[in-house]
């Protein structure tokens, strides 16, 4: 995919396989390779891996931002937050699932439609990237404004055409729908671009041959195009799910987790526990349980990634 950035020079003579070439590198090259990796490795160990591990330690203490000292409490934090964790997990799964399915459907549909021949295709593709470009908070502000009960443009339009007004952010179901719509709007361009670029790598001979054999347009889509994009789309869908699982800004800005705690996902809940109630130990316990789940979901992603790379 990177050829656009760096055109490979034409090969004049057969090059030996890269892997063989690389193993002929001397010991000094290997040392050099390791040395230039060190800054990034050390930095990442300190700022990401160590914090992840040390949160396990924190989760075993009664620790608060309001007190300087902490006391060891074993697994008490876990028993204290387990019920809440399960409740938030349900909300998180609802949000992450819906906010993955809709952008995938929308993105793939747009990719297929935009793959057709038409005037203004590139302009449309470019402008449809705009939502993806906006910072998450801007997306949330915008949709909070659109869904505003009293002055929002949605209700304004509904009234104009004689339909009843809807209250989105004021009730649990509406609030969940609102954050899912906002996140869908923010994410679909990414899926669209991935699906479109995969569609464009489809060898045209296959489609032509199928046409000659009498396949209809929908058959060509069903049996050639769709199988071609399924793998890469599944990969980005898994990534999208993982990111949605940890989403903070969309929900925090639009609903603050409310009304009640109907949209309080794990990320919002962890933030509130740590910086609203100052319960660092309990918040960390919640994080550790989340980490375990993340490990499971990530394995699925890594497996999928490996299978696609082998293809």
């Amino acid at each position, binding site marked *: 995919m990177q050829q656009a950035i760096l055109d490979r020079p034409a090969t004049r003579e057969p*090059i030996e396989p890269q892997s063989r070439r690389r193993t002929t590198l001397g010991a000094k090259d290997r040392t050099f390779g390791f040395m*230039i990796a060190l800054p990034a490795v050390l930095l990442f160990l300190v*700022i990401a891996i160590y914090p992840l591990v040390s949160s396990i330690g924190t989760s075993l203490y009664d620790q608060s931002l309001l007190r300087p000292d902490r006391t060891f409490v074993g697994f008490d934090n876990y028993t204290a937050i387990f019920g809440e964790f399960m409740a938030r997990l349900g909300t998180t799964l609802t949000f992450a699932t819906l906010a993955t399915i809709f952008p995938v459907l929308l993105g793939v549909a747009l990719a297929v439609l935009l793959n057709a*021949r*038409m005037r203004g295709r590139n302009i449309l593709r470019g402008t449809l990237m705009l939502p993806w470009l906006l910072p998450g908070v801007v997306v949330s502000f915008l949709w909070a404004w659109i869904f505003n009960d009293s002055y929002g443009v949605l209700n304004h339009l509904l009234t104009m055409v004689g339909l009843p007004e809807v209250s989105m952010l004021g009730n649990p179901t509406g609030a969940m729908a609102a954050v899912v719509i906002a996140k869908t*709007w923010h994410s679909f361009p990414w899926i669209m671009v991935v699906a479109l670029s995969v569609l464009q790598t489809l060898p*045209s001979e296959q*489609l032509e041959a199928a046409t000659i054999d009498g396949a209809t347009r929908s058959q060509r889509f069903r049996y050639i195009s769709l199988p071609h994009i399924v793998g890469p789309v599944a990969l980005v869908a898994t990534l999208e799910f993982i990111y949605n699982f940890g989403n903070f800004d969309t929900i925090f800005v639009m609903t603050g987790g409310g009304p009640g705690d109907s949209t309080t996902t794990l990320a919002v809940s962890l*933030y509130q526990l740590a910086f609203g109630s100052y319960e660092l130990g309990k918040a960390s316990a919640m994080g550790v349980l989340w980490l375990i789940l993340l490990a499971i979901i990530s394995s699925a992603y890594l497996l999928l990634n490996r299978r696609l790379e082998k293809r």
Partner: protein
Amino acid sequence: MSRGRDIGEAIVRPRLSIPGRIALLLLALFGLLPIYWLASTAFMKKEAVFALDRPLFPVDPTLENFIGFFQNDALLQNLANSFIVSIGTAVLSVLVGGLMAYSLSKFRYRGRNPIMFMFLIGQLIPGALLLISLYLMLSSAGLLYTYTALIISFTTFTLPLVVFLLKGIIDGLPDDILEAAKVDGLSRIATMFQIVFPLVVPGLITAAMFAFMRGWSDLLFALTLAGPDKQTLPAGLTQAFIREGTADWPALMAASLITSLPLAIIFILLQRYFVSGLASGAVKG
């Protein structure tokens, strides 16, 4: 030749049917109408959006919302902070990430696979899971509420991104170039700085821009690790408009447009690279 290709093209890319066109129109409206509403609210007067007969386009357009932003010292400070922190993040990420990418791409050594695995996993760690430990770490290092705190915490998500983006690009450099440099007697460091990195300058810039955009957009760390003086625009806007309950929507939309403008400019400059970077899957949506 052209005729044959036209027929092939028509099969690969058929024209849209009528239902297809309607579907495209509806989806495009969903994508673009909110953008229209963002821009048009930003030019409306505050009283106009609360009026009973509120218009759907800025009848009496005004710049007062934009002027208000630039007269607000706190927001201007946020804007400056955003630039400082995002540029810092981009520089740090590309500096150490570029070396890392070159190492992963062209060298084989013991520990390479675990290192690669660490960054692959690193891409998937949500900020919320690092938040508390980072807070405690930065606090005991005396770095809480500084630019450094934000740059460090943003680097947790920009570094893996930059590493994989650049690795993909450096992978495309033929090994012959390195061999030739060796034959010419260039040292390893000279090869890296005089041959490899100059060849991938567009990639380095793209990676820096991605890191900039991700840092620019973050809310969670900006809200918790920066404090009022050092926080970036997303945190500043959230507190100024939402938490205080003063929903001056036109002002908020104008501020949102201003916040989005640098990203739009970057996008226009680098559109070509964006699409390939996004498509390679190296980059988060």
